[in-house]
C-alpha cells in the first residue's frame, strides 16, 4: 500500500464530501464522482501490494486480481449512475430553470401550520 494512494483517497473523499453537501445538483454530481473514485481506489489498495499481471506474465507471485475485478464492476455502476444524475439535473433545470435540491414542501407546510389546524 503506497502512501501516495492513501493520500489521494483521503483528498478525493474530503473534496467529494464537501461538494456533496452543496445545494446544487451539478456540484453533488461532481462530489459523487470524486468519492466513488476514492472508493474504487480504496478497493484497489485493499488488494495488497502491486505486482505483475496474473496469468499472462507467467510469474508465480502476481497482483491480486479479485479486488480489481470488483473495482471494475464498481466503476461501471458509478458511471451509469452519474449519467442518471446528470439526466435528473437536466430535467430539474428544464422544470425550474435551476438544479437546486429543495426543501421538502410538505414538511415546511406542516411546520408552518398554526396550532390545532393540523387535521
Amino acid at each position: 500500500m503506497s502512501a501516495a494512494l492513501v493520500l489521494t483517497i483521503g483528498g478525493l473523499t474530503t473534496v467529494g464530501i464537501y461538494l456533496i453537501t452543496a445545494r446544487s445538483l451539478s456540484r453533488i454530481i461532481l462530489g459523487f464522482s470524486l468519492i466513488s473514485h476514492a472508493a474504487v481506489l480504496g478497493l484497489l489498495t485493499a488488494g495488497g501490494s502491486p505486482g505483475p499481471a496474473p496469468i499472462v506474465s507467467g510469474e508465480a507471485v502476481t497482483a491480486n486480481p479479485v479486488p480489481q475485478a470488483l473495482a471494475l464492476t464498481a466503476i461501471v455502476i458509478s458511471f451509469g449512475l452519474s449519467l442518471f444524475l446528470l439526466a435528473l439535473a437536466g430535467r430539474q433545470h428544464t422544470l425550474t430553470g435551476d438544479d437546486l435540491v429543495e426543501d421538502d414542501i410538505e414538511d415546511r407546510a406542516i411546520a408552518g401550520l398554526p396550532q390545532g389546524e393540523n387535521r
Partner: protein
Amino acid sequence: MSALVALTIVGPLVGAALGLALRRNSQLRDIAALLGIGSAAVGSFALLSQVSANGTTVVRVGGWAPELGIILVADLFAVLVLPIALAIIFVVEIFAIGQRRTAWGANPELAGPLLGILTSGVSLAMLTGDLFTLFVAFELILVSSYVLLTHQGQAAQIQAGMTYVVMNLFASTLFLFGLGFIYAATGTVNIALVAERIHDLPDGVRLGLGSWFLIVFGTKAAIFPLFSWLPDSYPTAPTTITAVFAGLLTKIGIYAMIRLHTLTSMEELGPVMLVIAGATMIIGAIGALAQSDVKRILSFHIISQVGYMLMGLALFSEAGLTGAILFLVHHMPVKTVLFLVGGLIANAEGSSRLRYTGGLAKRSPLIAALFAIPALSLAGIPPFSGFVAKLAVIRAGIEANSTPIVVAALIAGVLTLLSMAKIWLGVFWGPSVDRSDHNHPVSGPPGNRRTMYAATSLAVAGTLAISVMAGPLFDLSERAGAGLRSPSAYIEAVNP
C-alpha cells in the same frame, strides 16, 4: 434445487426483457411481466418447502471456490422472507395493470419491466452469500427504484427523487468503502469466510467494520437518524411504486443487517442498536401523527416499524431474532396493502390529503374494510398478524430484561394506533365535503377498478393468512433465528 435458486433471480429478468421487447402490445407485455415475477414467486415457495425439509442449499455460480466466485446461499432465513417479498411484488403488478389506464398510474411501458428488474435484485440480495454481490443487488434494486420514482418527470417527483437518489448513492459509496475495508482486513468478501475470519481481528477493527455497515444498511433501512429521505420521496411516486418501495426497500436494508451482524456476532453493538431502535420507533410514530396526508402518515410508519425489527436484532438473542424475522414477514405485506388502499382512496377521492377527504366509509364500505384490517394489524391489535409479531419482539425484550426498549415499543404501538385513527377520522368518517376545486377523482373503466380491488383484496387475504398461520410461521422463524445465532452451520454449508 439450484435451478429453483436460479429461477428466482433470472425469471424476472427474462420477463423484464420480454416485456421491453413487447412494449407496444400491452397485453403480451403485461403477461410477460406477470409470468417473470410469478415464476420467481412460485419458485421461491418451492424453495421454502425444499429448504425447510432438507436444509440449506448452496449454489456456486460457475463452480468457483468461495473466495473467488459468486455464491448463492438459500438458508431458512432467506427462503422464509423471499416468497413473501416476491408474492407482494406479484400482487402489486396486478394492481398496477388495473391502475395504469388512470391518471394516477405509472407508465405501463416502463413499470412492468422495471418491477421485474427490481424483483431480480430482491432475490439476489436475499440469496447472495457474498457482500459484493449484495452491493450489486442493492444497485440493481436502487437503479430500478430511481427510474420508477422519477420516470413520469413531474416536478414533485424530480425534486423528491433528487433527495432519494443522492442519499442512496452516498450510502452505496459508503458500502463500497466498507467492502474495501472488509477485503483489506479479511482478504475476502464472502460472508461466511468473513464471519470465520473476523474474530481474529482486533476488537477495534471488528466493531469499526460492524458500525460502518450499521450506517450503510441503516441508511437503506431508514433508521434514526438516517431516515429523512424516506418521507420526502415515497409519497410522490405513483401508488403501485410506493407500495413496492414501502413493502420491500427498507426491509432489504434490515435483512442485510440481520444477515451480516448476526453471522459476524456483533453483540457489542447491541446496546447502541437498541437506543437507535427505540428512537426510530418513537420518532417515526410521532412524525406520523404530525402529518396530514395519508401517504405521508404511512411513510412515517415505515420508519417506526423498522425500529421494531432493529430491536429484535439488537437483543442478539434467539427470541429477538425470531421476533425480528416474524415482524419482517408480517410487515412487508401489511405495509404494501396499506399503500395500495391509499391508492384506492386517492382514486376514489381525487386526493390523499385528510383535509380534502371525508365520509368515504358510507360511499365505499369496501375500501373502508380493506383499510381497517391492515391498519389494525399494523397497530398490533389481536388477532391480526401485527399482534403476533409485536408480541414476539416485546417478549424477547422482556426476556432480555431491557425495560426501556419494551416501554418504547409499547408507546410507539399506541401512537401508531392513534395515527391510524387519524386517517380513519379524516378519510372514512365525517361529512363528505365537496372539494371539487381541489380534487379530481379518477374512476377509470370499471374493469380496471375491479382489477385493483381484486389485487388489494388478495393482499389483505394474504395478511390474514399470515395471522392464521402464525403458529407454523413462528416455528419456522424460530428455526431461522436459531440458524442465524449459530453461524457455524452457515459457514459449514458454504465452505465445507
